[in-house]
Protein backbone atom coordinates (compact mmCIF):
# COMPACT_ATOMS: atom_id res chain seq x y z
CA UNK A 1 0.00 0.00 0.00
CA UNK A 2 1.31 3.48 -0.85
CA UNK A 3 2.29 5.76 2.01
CA UNK A 4 0.66 8.78 0.27
CA UNK A 5 -2.62 8.99 -1.57
CA UNK A 6 -5.54 11.22 -2.54
CA UNK A 7 -8.87 10.80 -0.80
CA UNK A 8 -11.02 13.08 -2.94
CA UNK A 9 -9.99 16.66 -2.17
CA UNK A 10 -7.74 15.51 0.65
CA UNK A 11 -4.13 14.46 0.24
CA UNK A 12 -2.86 11.97 2.81
CA UNK A 13 0.50 10.70 3.92
CA UNK A 14 1.28 8.09 6.51
CA UNK A 15 4.55 7.87 8.37
CA UNK A 16 6.08 6.54 11.53
CA UNK A 17 7.89 8.84 13.93
CA UNK A 18 11.49 7.72 14.22
CA UNK A 19 13.88 7.96 17.16
CA UNK A 20 15.90 10.73 15.54
CA UNK A 21 12.78 12.85 14.95
CA UNK A 22 12.27 12.99 18.72
CA UNK A 23 13.68 14.95 21.62
CA UNK A 24 15.29 13.67 24.80
CA UNK A 25 11.81 12.78 26.11
CA UNK A 26 11.23 10.66 22.97
CA UNK A 27 8.47 13.02 21.84
CA UNK A 28 8.44 14.36 18.32
CA UNK A 29 10.21 17.64 17.62
CA UNK A 30 7.95 20.53 16.65
CA UNK A 31 10.12 21.22 13.61
CA UNK A 32 9.50 17.69 12.33
CA UNK A 33 5.71 18.14 12.28
CA UNK A 34 6.12 21.57 10.69
CA UNK A 35 8.44 20.14 8.03
CA UNK A 36 6.00 17.37 7.13
CA UNK A 37 3.09 19.83 6.85
CA UNK A 38 5.01 22.00 4.39
CA UNK A 39 6.29 18.95 2.50
CA UNK A 40 2.90 17.36 1.96
CA UNK A 41 1.66 20.70 0.65
CA UNK A 42 4.53 20.47 -1.84
CA UNK A 43 3.72 16.82 -2.58
CA UNK A 44 0.11 17.67 -3.37
CA UNK A 45 1.22 20.55 -5.54
CA UNK A 46 3.51 18.14 -7.42
CA UNK A 47 0.75 15.60 -7.77
CA UNK A 48 -1.33 18.36 -9.36
CA UNK A 49 1.40 19.00 -11.92
CA UNK A 50 3.10 21.88 -10.11
CA UNK A 51 6.50 20.30 -9.63
CA UNK A 52 9.30 22.45 -8.24
CA UNK A 53 10.94 22.49 -11.72
CA UNK A 54 7.66 23.44 -13.42
CA UNK A 55 7.12 26.36 -11.05
CA UNK A 56 10.74 27.57 -11.20
CA UNK A 57 10.72 27.32 -15.00
CA UNK A 58 7.48 29.30 -14.98
CA UNK A 59 9.17 32.01 -12.93
CA UNK A 60 7.27 31.34 -9.73
CA UNK A 61 7.66 29.49 -6.44
CA UNK A 62 5.38 28.95 -3.47
CA UNK A 63 6.69 30.37 -0.21
CA UNK A 64 5.13 29.95 3.20
CA UNK A 65 4.36 33.18 4.99
CA UNK A 66 2.58 32.07 8.17
CA UNK A 67 1.70 28.85 9.97
CA UNK A 68 -0.21 27.87 13.07
CA UNK A 69 -0.41 24.56 14.93
CA UNK A 70 -2.56 23.11 17.69
CA UNK A 71 -1.48 19.94 19.46
CA UNK A 72 -3.97 17.91 21.50
CA UNK A 73 -0.95 15.85 22.50
CA UNK A 74 2.62 15.43 21.31
CA UNK A 75 3.22 12.30 19.20
CA UNK A 76 5.78 9.84 20.52
CA UNK A 77 8.61 7.81 19.02
CA UNK A 78 7.43 4.84 16.90
CA UNK A 79 3.91 6.25 16.60
CA UNK A 80 2.24 6.03 13.19
CA UNK A 81 0.64 9.28 12.04
CA UNK A 82 -1.63 10.05 9.12
CA UNK A 83 -1.31 13.60 7.82
CA UNK A 84 -4.20 14.97 5.76
CA UNK A 85 -3.95 18.28 3.93
CA UNK A 86 -6.36 20.21 1.78
CA UNK A 87 -6.40 23.49 -0.08
CA UNK A 88 -9.02 25.67 1.61
CA UNK A 89 -9.25 28.88 -0.43
CA UNK A 90 -7.39 31.90 -1.73
CA UNK A 91 -7.70 35.07 0.27
CA UNK A 92 -6.24 38.22 -1.22
CA UNK A 93 -2.77 37.23 -2.39
CA UNK A 94 -2.58 34.13 -0.27
CA UNK A 95 -3.35 30.43 -0.66
CA UNK A 96 -4.78 28.99 2.55
CA UNK A 97 -4.17 25.34 3.34
CA UNK A 98 -5.06 23.26 6.38
CA UNK A 99 -3.91 19.93 7.76
CA UNK A 100 -4.78 17.47 10.44
CA UNK A 101 -2.70 14.73 12.01
CA UNK A 102 -4.46 11.60 13.23
CA UNK A 103 -3.64 8.18 14.58
CA UNK A 104 -4.56 5.15 12.43
CA UNK A 105 -7.63 4.81 14.72
CA UNK A 106 -8.73 8.31 13.70
CA UNK A 107 -7.82 10.13 16.91
CA UNK A 108 -7.11 13.80 16.17
CA UNK A 109 -3.62 14.57 17.49
CA UNK A 110 -2.76 17.91 15.91
CA UNK A 111 -3.99 20.36 13.32
CA UNK A 112 -2.32 23.08 11.30
CA UNK A 113 -3.06 26.02 9.03
CA UNK A 114 -0.74 27.80 6.66
CA UNK A 115 -0.72 30.67 4.20
CA UNK A 116 1.39 30.47 1.07
CA UNK A 117 2.21 33.18 -1.45
CA UNK A 118 3.19 32.70 -5.07
CA UNK A 119 6.44 34.57 -5.64
CA UNK A 120 8.44 35.61 -8.67
CA UNK A 121 11.88 34.48 -7.42
CA UNK A 122 13.76 36.85 -9.74
CA UNK A 123 11.79 39.98 -8.93
CA UNK A 124 10.92 38.93 -5.34
CA UNK A 125 7.36 40.06 -6.00
CA UNK A 126 4.11 38.42 -4.94
CA UNK A 127 2.07 37.10 -7.87
CA UNK A 128 -1.73 37.10 -7.76
CA UNK A 129 -3.19 33.60 -7.16
CA UNK A 130 -5.18 33.93 -10.39
CA UNK A 131 -1.86 33.61 -12.28
CA UNK A 132 -1.90 29.92 -11.34
CA UNK A 133 -4.57 28.78 -13.77
CA UNK A 134 -4.60 25.03 -13.22
CA UNK A 135 -4.35 22.48 -10.50
CA UNK A 136 -6.47 23.96 -7.71
CA UNK A 137 -9.99 23.25 -8.89
CA UNK A 138 -10.48 20.96 -5.88
CA UNK A 139 -10.78 22.54 -2.46
CA UNK A 140 -12.60 22.15 0.81
CA UNK A 141 -13.71 25.01 3.02
CA UNK A 142 -13.32 22.80 6.08
CA UNK A 143 -11.30 24.70 8.71
CA UNK A 144 -8.82 22.79 10.83
CA UNK A 145 -8.92 23.12 14.61
CA UNK A 146 -5.68 25.14 14.67
CA UNK A 147 -5.79 28.88 15.44
CA UNK A 148 -5.95 31.31 12.51
CA UNK A 149 -2.54 32.38 11.26
CA UNK A 150 -1.80 35.90 12.43
CA UNK A 151 0.89 38.52 12.60
CA UNK A 152 2.97 37.98 15.75
CA UNK A 153 3.50 41.21 17.63
CA UNK A 154 5.26 41.07 21.01
CA UNK A 155 3.57 43.18 23.65
CA UNK A 156 6.79 43.74 25.56
CA UNK A 157 10.36 44.40 24.37
CA UNK A 158 12.25 41.16 23.85
CA UNK A 159 15.71 40.51 25.24
CA UNK A 160 18.73 39.27 23.33
CA UNK A 161 19.11 35.49 23.71
CA UNK A 162 22.07 34.92 21.41
CA UNK A 163 23.25 34.58 17.84
CA UNK A 164 22.77 31.70 15.43
CA UNK A 165 24.93 31.31 12.31
CA UNK A 166 23.12 29.96 9.27
CA UNK A 167 24.62 26.62 8.29
CA UNK A 168 24.67 24.89 4.92
CA UNK A 169 22.37 22.13 6.24
CA UNK A 170 19.71 24.73 7.17
CA UNK A 171 19.16 25.43 3.46
CA UNK A 172 16.65 23.82 1.13
CA UNK A 173 16.21 23.62 -2.64
CA UNK A 174 15.30 27.31 -2.69
CA UNK A 175 18.80 28.15 -1.35
CA UNK A 176 17.38 29.76 1.77
CA UNK A 177 16.80 28.60 5.35
CA UNK A 178 14.02 26.01 5.28
CA UNK A 179 10.89 27.00 7.18
CA UNK A 180 11.21 24.07 9.59
CA UNK A 181 14.76 25.15 10.49
CA UNK A 182 13.36 28.36 12.06
CA UNK A 183 11.27 26.46 14.59
CA UNK A 184 14.30 24.24 15.32
CA UNK A 185 16.34 27.38 15.99
CA UNK A 186 13.53 28.84 18.10
CA UNK A 187 13.30 25.64 20.20
CA UNK A 188 17.07 25.68 20.67
CA UNK A 189 16.92 29.22 22.03
CA UNK A 190 14.01 28.63 24.42
CA UNK A 191 15.12 28.81 28.05
CA UNK A 192 15.86 25.21 29.20
CA UNK A 193 12.81 25.10 31.47
CA UNK A 194 10.56 25.42 28.39
CA UNK A 195 12.39 23.14 25.96
CA UNK A 196 10.67 19.92 26.90
CA UNK A 197 7.31 21.53 27.81
CA UNK A 198 4.29 20.28 25.89
CA UNK A 199 3.40 22.76 23.16
CA UNK A 200 -0.33 23.40 22.81
CA UNK A 201 -0.29 26.11 20.14
CA UNK A 202 2.54 27.35 17.95
CA UNK A 203 2.40 30.23 15.51
CA UNK A 204 5.16 31.32 13.19
CA UNK A 205 5.65 34.15 10.65
CA UNK A 206 8.29 34.03 7.93
CA UNK A 207 9.13 37.64 7.20
CA UNK A 208 12.27 37.55 5.11
CA UNK A 209 14.45 34.86 3.56
CA UNK A 210 17.73 34.07 5.32
CA UNK A 211 20.76 32.96 3.32
CA UNK A 212 23.96 31.05 3.96
CA UNK A 213 26.57 32.93 5.99
CA UNK A 214 24.01 35.30 7.52
CA UNK A 215 23.73 35.34 11.31
CA UNK A 216 20.39 35.50 13.08
CA UNK A 217 20.17 37.62 16.19
CA UNK A 218 17.67 35.82 18.42
CA UNK A 219 15.49 37.78 20.81
CA UNK A 220 12.84 36.38 23.12
CA UNK A 221 10.52 36.97 26.02
CA UNK A 222 7.88 35.40 28.23
CA UNK A 223 4.20 35.89 27.39
CA UNK A 224 1.12 35.19 29.50
CA UNK A 225 0.90 31.58 28.31
CA UNK A 226 4.24 30.90 26.71
CA UNK A 227 7.18 32.44 24.94
CA UNK A 228 7.88 34.60 21.86
CA UNK A 229 11.06 34.33 19.80
CA UNK A 230 12.15 36.60 16.97
CA UNK A 231 15.13 36.35 14.62
CA UNK A 232 16.76 39.39 13.03
CA UNK A 233 19.54 39.99 10.53
CA UNK A 234 20.93 43.52 10.42
CA UNK A 235 17.93 44.67 12.49
CA UNK A 236 15.50 43.33 9.88
CA UNK A 237 12.96 40.82 11.19
CA UNK A 238 13.33 37.45 9.44
CA UNK A 239 10.99 35.31 11.55
CA UNK A 240 8.81 35.48 14.63
CA UNK A 241 7.11 32.68 16.51
CA UNK A 242 4.99 32.21 19.58
CA UNK A 243 4.80 29.09 21.76
CA UNK A 244 1.80 28.46 23.99
CA UNK A 245 2.53 25.70 26.48
CA UNK A 246 0.02 23.26 27.89
CA UNK A 247 -0.69 23.80 31.55
CA UNK A 248 0.88 20.99 33.59
Amino acid at each position, binding site marked *: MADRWFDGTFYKRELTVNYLDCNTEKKVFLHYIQGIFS*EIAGDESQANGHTHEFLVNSGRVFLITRMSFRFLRTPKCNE*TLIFTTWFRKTEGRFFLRDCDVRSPKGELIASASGTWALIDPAEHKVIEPSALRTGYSEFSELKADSPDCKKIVPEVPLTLLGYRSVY*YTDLDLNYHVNNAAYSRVATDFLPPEYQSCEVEDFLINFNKETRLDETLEIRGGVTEHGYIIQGFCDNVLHFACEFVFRKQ
Partner: protein
Amino acid sequence: MSAHGKLYSEVIRKMSEEWYDGAYFNRKIIFRFGDCDKSKNASLYAVMKLLSELAGEDYERRGLGYEYLLKHGQALLLSRMRFKFVRMPVHTEKVVACTWERFDKGPYFYRDFEIKSESGELLISASSQWFLVDIISREILRPSSLAEGRRQLDPRKSDCPDCEKLKKTGDLPVLGRRPVCYSDLDGNCHVNNAVYGKIAVDYLPEEIRKKKIMGFSINFFIETKQNEMLEICGSETVNGYTLQGMSNSKLRFGCEFVC
Protein backbone atom coordinates in the same frame (compact mmCIF):
# COMPACT_ATOMS: atom_id res chain seq x y z
CA MET B 1 6.68 -1.16 20.60
CA SER B 2 6.20 -4.70 19.37
CA ALA B 3 4.26 -5.48 16.22
CA HIS B 4 1.62 -7.14 18.45
CA GLY B 5 0.78 -3.75 19.96
CA LYS B 6 0.10 -2.16 16.62
CA LEU B 7 -3.10 -2.01 14.65
CA TYR B 8 -3.56 -4.68 12.02
CA SER B 9 -3.88 -2.07 9.25
CA GLU B 10 -0.64 -0.50 10.39
CA VAL B 11 1.15 -3.83 10.31
CA ILE B 12 -0.15 -4.53 6.80
CA ARG B 13 1.05 -1.11 5.62
CA LYS B 14 4.44 -1.55 7.20
CA MET B 15 4.82 -5.03 5.74
CA SER B 16 4.79 -3.46 2.30
CA GLU B 17 7.57 -1.06 3.26
CA GLU B 18 9.69 -3.11 5.67
CA TRP B 19 10.49 -6.79 5.43
CA TYR B 20 12.99 -9.47 6.37
CA ASP B 21 14.93 -11.66 4.03
CA GLY B 22 16.83 -13.89 6.46
CA ALA B 23 19.41 -11.75 8.24
CA TYR B 24 18.59 -8.78 6.02
CA PHE B 25 16.16 -6.12 7.22
CA ASN B 26 14.84 -4.02 4.33
CA ARG B 27 12.97 -0.75 4.18
CA LYS B 28 11.58 0.99 1.12
CA ILE B 29 11.76 4.74 1.47
CA ILE B 30 11.53 7.99 -0.47
CA PHE B 31 13.94 10.78 0.39
CA ARG B 32 11.72 13.74 1.24
CA PHE B 33 12.27 17.46 0.70
CA GLY B 34 13.66 17.94 4.19
CA ASP B 35 16.15 15.09 3.64
CA CYS B 36 17.80 16.79 0.68
CA ASP B 37 20.33 19.56 0.24
CA LYS B 38 20.02 22.52 -2.08
CA SER B 39 21.27 20.35 -4.96
CA LYS B 40 18.34 17.95 -4.46
CA ASN B 41 20.66 15.17 -3.28
CA ALA B 42 19.94 13.30 -0.07
CA SER B 43 22.07 14.88 2.65
CA LEU B 44 24.74 12.94 4.50
CA TYR B 45 22.72 13.57 7.65
CA ALA B 46 19.59 11.98 6.10
CA VAL B 47 21.59 8.91 5.02
CA MET B 48 23.27 8.52 8.43
CA LYS B 49 19.92 9.02 10.17
CA LEU B 50 18.24 6.41 7.97
CA LEU B 51 20.92 3.77 8.51
CA SER B 52 21.05 4.38 12.23
CA GLU B 53 17.26 4.07 12.46
CA LEU B 54 17.32 0.92 10.36
CA ALA B 55 19.84 -0.70 12.73
CA GLY B 56 17.69 0.30 15.71
CA GLU B 57 14.50 -1.00 14.10
CA ASP B 58 16.17 -4.31 13.20
CA TYR B 59 17.16 -4.90 16.82
CA GLU B 60 13.72 -3.68 17.97
CA ARG B 61 12.01 -6.32 15.85
CA ARG B 62 14.44 -8.98 16.98
CA GLY B 63 13.54 -8.37 20.61
CA LEU B 64 16.62 -6.30 21.48
CA GLY B 65 15.13 -2.82 21.21
CA TYR B 66 16.05 0.35 23.06
CA GLU B 67 13.51 -0.18 25.88
CA TYR B 68 14.51 -3.82 26.36
CA LEU B 69 18.19 -2.91 26.65
CA LEU B 70 17.33 -0.01 28.96
CA LYS B 71 15.52 -2.42 31.29
CA HIS B 72 18.71 -4.47 31.39
CA GLY B 73 20.82 -1.37 32.07
CA GLN B 74 22.44 -1.53 28.64
CA ALA B 75 22.65 0.56 25.49
CA LEU B 76 24.22 -0.05 22.10
CA LEU B 77 26.34 2.85 20.93
CA LEU B 78 27.80 3.48 17.52
CA SER B 79 31.57 3.69 17.47
CA ARG B 80 32.56 3.94 13.79
CA MET B 81 30.95 4.22 10.38
CA ARG B 82 32.27 4.19 6.87
CA PHE B 83 30.44 4.89 3.62
CA LYS B 84 31.14 4.24 -0.04
CA PHE B 85 29.00 6.37 -2.34
CA VAL B 86 28.32 5.46 -5.96
CA ARG B 87 25.83 8.32 -6.02
CA MET B 88 23.50 9.99 -3.54
CA PRO B 89 19.77 9.28 -3.87
CA VAL B 90 17.87 12.33 -5.10
CA HIS B 91 14.67 14.05 -3.97
CA THR B 92 11.57 11.81 -4.37
CA GLU B 93 13.69 8.81 -5.49
CA LYS B 94 12.38 5.49 -4.21
CA VAL B 95 15.14 3.36 -2.73
CA VAL B 96 15.48 0.18 -0.72
CA ALA B 97 17.79 0.36 2.29
CA CYS B 98 18.89 -2.81 4.02
CA THR B 99 21.02 -3.78 6.97
CA TRP B 100 22.39 -7.00 8.35
CA GLU B 101 24.48 -7.94 11.35
CA ARG B 102 27.70 -9.68 10.32
CA PHE B 103 29.34 -10.91 13.53
CA ASP B 104 30.84 -9.68 16.75
CA LYS B 105 34.57 -9.59 17.37
CA GLY B 106 36.33 -8.22 20.45
CA PRO B 107 34.07 -5.56 21.94
CA TYR B 108 32.43 -4.73 18.60
CA PHE B 109 29.26 -5.70 16.79
CA TYR B 110 29.80 -5.45 13.03
CA ARG B 111 26.84 -4.34 10.89
CA ASP B 112 26.71 -3.43 7.20
CA PHE B 113 24.24 -1.55 5.03
CA GLU B 114 23.26 -1.06 1.42
CA ILE B 115 21.00 1.43 -0.30
CA LYS B 116 19.84 0.43 -3.77
CA SER B 117 17.59 2.03 -6.35
CA GLU B 118 14.27 0.36 -7.14
CA SER B 119 15.93 -1.27 -10.13
CA GLY B 120 18.63 -2.75 -7.90
CA GLU B 121 21.49 -0.33 -8.69
CA LEU B 122 23.80 -0.07 -5.68
CA LEU B 123 23.93 3.58 -4.59
CA ILE B 124 25.55 3.45 -1.15
CA SER B 125 27.23 0.77 0.93
CA ALA B 126 28.32 1.21 4.53
CA SER B 127 30.11 -0.54 7.37
CA SER B 128 29.60 0.10 11.07
CA GLN B 129 30.94 -0.99 14.46
CA TRP B 130 28.84 -0.80 17.61
CA PHE B 131 29.54 -1.57 21.26
CA LEU B 132 27.46 -2.35 24.29
CA VAL B 133 27.72 -0.19 27.39
CA ASP B 134 26.42 -0.21 30.92
CA ILE B 135 24.01 2.71 30.82
CA ILE B 136 25.00 4.00 34.26
CA SER B 137 28.76 3.45 34.43
CA ARG B 138 29.27 3.72 30.64
CA GLU B 139 31.61 0.70 31.02
CA ILE B 140 32.05 -1.23 27.77
CA LEU B 141 30.50 -4.71 27.99
CA ARG B 142 31.47 -7.83 26.06
CA PRO B 143 29.07 -8.75 23.24
CA SER B 144 28.32 -11.99 25.12
CA SER B 145 26.55 -9.82 27.76
CA LEU B 146 23.81 -9.09 25.22
CA ALA B 147 20.79 -11.35 25.44
CA GLU B 148 20.54 -13.33 22.21
CA GLY B 149 17.07 -12.19 21.16
CA ARG B 150 16.34 -13.44 17.66
CA ARG B 151 19.64 -12.31 16.16
CA GLN B 152 20.43 -13.69 12.74
CA LEU B 153 23.88 -13.08 11.27
CA ASP B 154 25.34 -13.13 7.78
CA PRO B 155 29.11 -12.50 7.58
CA ARG B 156 28.86 -11.17 3.99
CA LYS B 157 30.82 -7.94 3.58
CA SER B 158 29.23 -5.06 1.72
CA ASP B 159 31.14 -3.28 -1.04
CA CYS B 160 32.29 -0.70 1.52
CA PRO B 161 35.68 -1.36 3.17
CA ASP B 162 35.82 -2.01 6.92
CA CYS B 163 35.61 0.97 9.25
CA GLU B 164 38.94 2.64 9.86
CA LYS B 165 40.35 3.87 13.13
CA LEU B 166 40.88 7.60 12.75
CA LYS B 167 43.61 9.11 14.88
CA LYS B 168 43.73 12.55 16.38
CA THR B 169 45.65 14.87 14.12
CA GLY B 170 47.42 17.69 15.93
CA ASP B 171 47.70 21.25 14.72
CA LEU B 172 44.69 21.30 12.41
CA PRO B 173 43.46 24.85 11.80
CA VAL B 174 40.37 25.86 13.79
CA LEU B 175 37.39 26.32 11.46
CA GLY B 176 34.88 27.48 14.04
CA ARG B 177 33.05 26.78 17.27
CA ARG B 178 29.72 24.98 17.20
CA PRO B 179 27.51 25.14 20.30
CA VAL B 180 25.58 21.96 21.06
CA CYS B 181 21.84 22.68 20.91
CA TYR B 182 18.78 20.97 22.34
CA SER B 183 17.70 19.72 18.90
CA ASP B 184 21.08 17.95 18.45
CA LEU B 185 20.27 15.56 21.30
CA ASP B 186 18.52 12.21 21.15
CA GLY B 187 16.84 9.90 23.67
CA ASN B 188 20.26 9.16 25.20
CA CYS B 189 20.59 12.90 26.03
CA HIS B 190 23.74 13.21 23.92
CA VAL B 191 24.48 14.50 20.43
CA ASN B 192 23.11 11.94 18.01
CA ASN B 193 25.65 10.29 15.70
CA ALA B 194 23.95 11.57 12.52
CA VAL B 195 24.19 15.14 13.82
CA TYR B 196 27.99 14.89 13.73
CA GLY B 197 27.68 14.21 9.98
CA LYS B 198 25.55 17.33 9.65
CA ILE B 199 28.09 19.41 11.59
CA ALA B 200 30.93 18.04 9.44
CA VAL B 201 29.16 19.07 6.22
CA ASP B 202 28.43 22.53 7.66
CA TYR B 203 32.14 23.10 8.27
CA LEU B 204 33.39 21.74 4.94
CA PRO B 205 34.81 24.45 2.68
CA GLU B 206 32.41 25.24 -0.17
CA GLU B 207 34.92 24.02 -2.79
CA ILE B 208 34.99 20.56 -1.15
CA ARG B 209 31.19 20.48 -0.78
CA LYS B 210 30.89 21.05 -4.53
CA LYS B 211 32.97 17.94 -5.28
CA LYS B 212 31.48 14.48 -5.62
CA ILE B 213 31.97 12.73 -2.29
CA MET B 214 33.11 9.13 -2.90
CA GLY B 215 33.58 8.07 0.69
CA PHE B 216 33.15 9.14 4.28
CA SER B 217 34.54 7.71 7.52
CA ILE B 218 33.61 8.82 11.00
CA ASN B 219 34.63 7.78 14.52
CA PHE B 220 32.66 8.73 17.62
CA PHE B 221 35.02 9.04 20.59
CA ILE B 222 33.29 10.62 23.59
CA GLU B 223 29.67 11.68 24.03
CA THR B 224 28.88 15.39 23.72
CA LYS B 225 26.14 16.86 25.89
CA GLN B 226 23.95 19.94 25.78
CA ASN B 227 25.67 23.30 26.39
CA GLU B 228 29.08 21.96 25.42
CA MET B 229 30.95 23.77 22.68
CA LEU B 230 32.59 21.82 19.88
CA GLU B 231 35.73 23.34 18.46
CA ILE B 232 35.85 22.23 14.83
CA CYS B 233 39.26 21.81 13.23
CA GLY B 234 39.94 20.65 9.70
CA SER B 235 42.24 20.56 6.75
CA GLU B 236 42.54 19.23 3.21
CA THR B 237 44.06 15.78 2.74
CA VAL B 238 45.59 14.17 -0.34
CA ASN B 239 42.19 13.00 -1.57
CA GLY B 240 39.65 14.94 0.47
CA TYR B 241 39.20 16.65 3.80
CA THR B 242 39.59 15.73 7.46
CA LEU B 243 37.61 17.24 10.34
CA GLN B 244 37.73 16.87 14.11
CA GLY B 245 35.48 18.09 16.90
CA MET B 246 36.95 18.80 20.35
CA SER B 247 35.29 19.87 23.56
CA ASN B 248 37.07 20.57 26.84
CA SER B 249 40.32 19.48 25.16
CA LYS B 250 38.94 16.02 24.41
CA LEU B 251 38.34 14.62 20.93
CA ARG B 252 34.61 13.91 20.45
CA PHE B 253 34.52 12.90 16.80
CA GLY B 254 36.82 12.67 13.82
CA CYS B 255 35.87 12.18 10.18
CA GLU B 256 37.31 12.06 6.68
CA PHE B 257 35.68 12.87 3.37
CA VAL B 258 37.11 11.23 0.24
CA CYS B 259 36.40 13.17 -2.97
